[in-house]
């Protein structure tokens, strides 16, 4: 109980400090302390839903939520989370869910952590030199010309609905299988692939994460019965307190250094999971309850 509160506080501290959801750190941590992966993923989805609600309130007030964009992504997200939960159930039946969760985390944590570290180290180096080039204000990306074009006023975009729908779909599957909101993947994609303004991307991704993780929670409860509300609430209680402290500490530190630190941390968690996959296990046998149709 206190361990869980502490973990909630620790990850909440980091998420407040770095401005990320923290699901991608919490789920592996829960698995490390021995929570069955299926329960960890489903309950963490529940906790992320709660955390996103509290996050979106602030963004809503500042007008940083593009509801039209959020809705299009949500359509994809709903479909994705349904696909993810069914896939999850199938993987549990054939006994491979732990493996798929681990591999997904190794890939995502290593790639995202690596990119963050590289990007922030570059930024630190760049800051030591005078500014040379300016970014263009408006870019056109490859996916902007696809059919089904919609006008997204808040994001100042007139683009095809297919890329946001596709992003939603991917994040929905991620939410269901990995128990994450997917902000760490979604926000960069919205900024660099869709060309959305950063503040709007953050607010809108939170908005759509609420729904996607809620749907995942509901579907996990329906098909797998692996949602532990008490676990989610305990984590949330810790996370709320931790996030407060984290935000204050974060405000005192430099952005690039923060990101470099977070990137390194993410890589370490990913590496630990990766090593566990490769190293000969002490016990090649594992026992689980039988799941039948």
């Amino acid at each position, binding site marked *: 109980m206190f361990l869980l509160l502490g973990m909630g506080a620790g990850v909440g501290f980091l998420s407040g400090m770095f401005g990320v959801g923290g699901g991608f750190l919490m789920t592996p941590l829960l698995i490390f302390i021995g929570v069955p992966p299926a329960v960890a993923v489903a309950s963490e989805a529940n906790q992320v839903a709660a955390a996103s609600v509290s*996050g979106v309130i602030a963004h809503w007030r500042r007008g940083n939520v593009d509801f039209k964009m959020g809705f299009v992504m949500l359509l994809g997200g709903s479909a994705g989370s349904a696909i993810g939960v069914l896939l999850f159930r199938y993987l549990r039946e054939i006994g491979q869910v732990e493996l798929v969760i681990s591999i997904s985390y190794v890939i995502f944590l290593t790639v995202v952590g690596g990119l963050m570290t590289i990007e922030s180290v570059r930024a630190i180096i760049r800051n030591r030199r005078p500014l040379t080039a300016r970014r263009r204000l408006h870019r056109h990306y490859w996916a902007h010309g696809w059919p089904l074009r919609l006008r997204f006023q808040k994001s100042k975009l007139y683009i095809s609905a297919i890329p946001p729908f596709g992003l939603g779909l991917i994040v929905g599957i991620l939410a269901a299988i990995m128990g994450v909101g997917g902000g760490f993947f979604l926000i960069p994609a919205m900024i660099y692939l869709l060309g959305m303004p950063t503040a709007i991307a953050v607010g809108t991704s939170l908005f759509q994460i609420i729904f996607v993780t809620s749907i995942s*929670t509901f579907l996990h409860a329906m098909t797998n019965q692996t949602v532990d509300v008490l676990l989610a*609430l305990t984590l949330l209680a810790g996370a709320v307190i931790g996030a407060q402290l984290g935000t204050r500490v974060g405000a005192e530190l430099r952005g690039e250094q923060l990101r470099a630190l977070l990137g390194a941390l993410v890589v370490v968690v990913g590496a630990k999971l990766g090593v566990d996959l*490769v190293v000969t296990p002490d016990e090649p046998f594992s026992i689980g*309850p*039988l799941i039948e149709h």
Partner: protein
Amino acid sequence: MKTQLPLLLAIVGIVLSDVPLKDAHAADQLTGDVSSRLIAITSNYTGAELILFGSRIGEGDVVAVVRGPTQSDVVRRKTRFAGIWVNTEALIFDEVPGFYAVAASRPLPEIAKQALWSQLQIGAEYLKLDPREDVTDVKVYPYREALINNKEKGGLYLRQVGKINFIGNTLFRTSVELPAYAPVGGYFVMFYLIEGGEVVETRNTFFFINKTGLERAVFDFAINEPAAYGLLAVAIAVFAGWLAGVMFRRA
């Protein structure tokens, strides 16, 4: 959790029909019971100690067996595949007792021959655990051992035979540690009076481990009303998140 009384009665029937009674008329030499009929799991539950006690007339030995509710377990084996360890093979074991413990007044080999223990499934090594698939014993063995070891690690199976102590000439008692993760459901307790290497008399009783209070309510709700539970989980999360957001803004 529905009561498992019909199941328990079925087990009693099976076990009784297997027991070779030396003298069917020599009844009432043995009595036995447990200290608690219902063990309630509450929020501070960390396991329980159950006392088994009774009396016997004469000089026979007493052996007690406790079995928890049965379930089907899958035992999976990891092998290296493309550099990483993957579950590749699995055997399904049906009717695996969720708890298993034996206590005896003397070491088992001194009380009777191995054939009797094997017949009565007394001792983890004689527990009937057969895979659903029809495979050779050689293949089953490591899976079976892994299953028993896994249960033993969790305190669910006790390979070590517990000690039944006599108080005076007739009264006996022993205690059984029920770990925090002992499965919920009906438990079956069997007492054997053994004399000259044969079973003279048997007595059986049962007890339940059940979740009570909030844990019970949450557990039942999640299993019986998954849709409502899912909706409630979401509602609680949204409310808690909103509350946290409001508190955050004030701070």
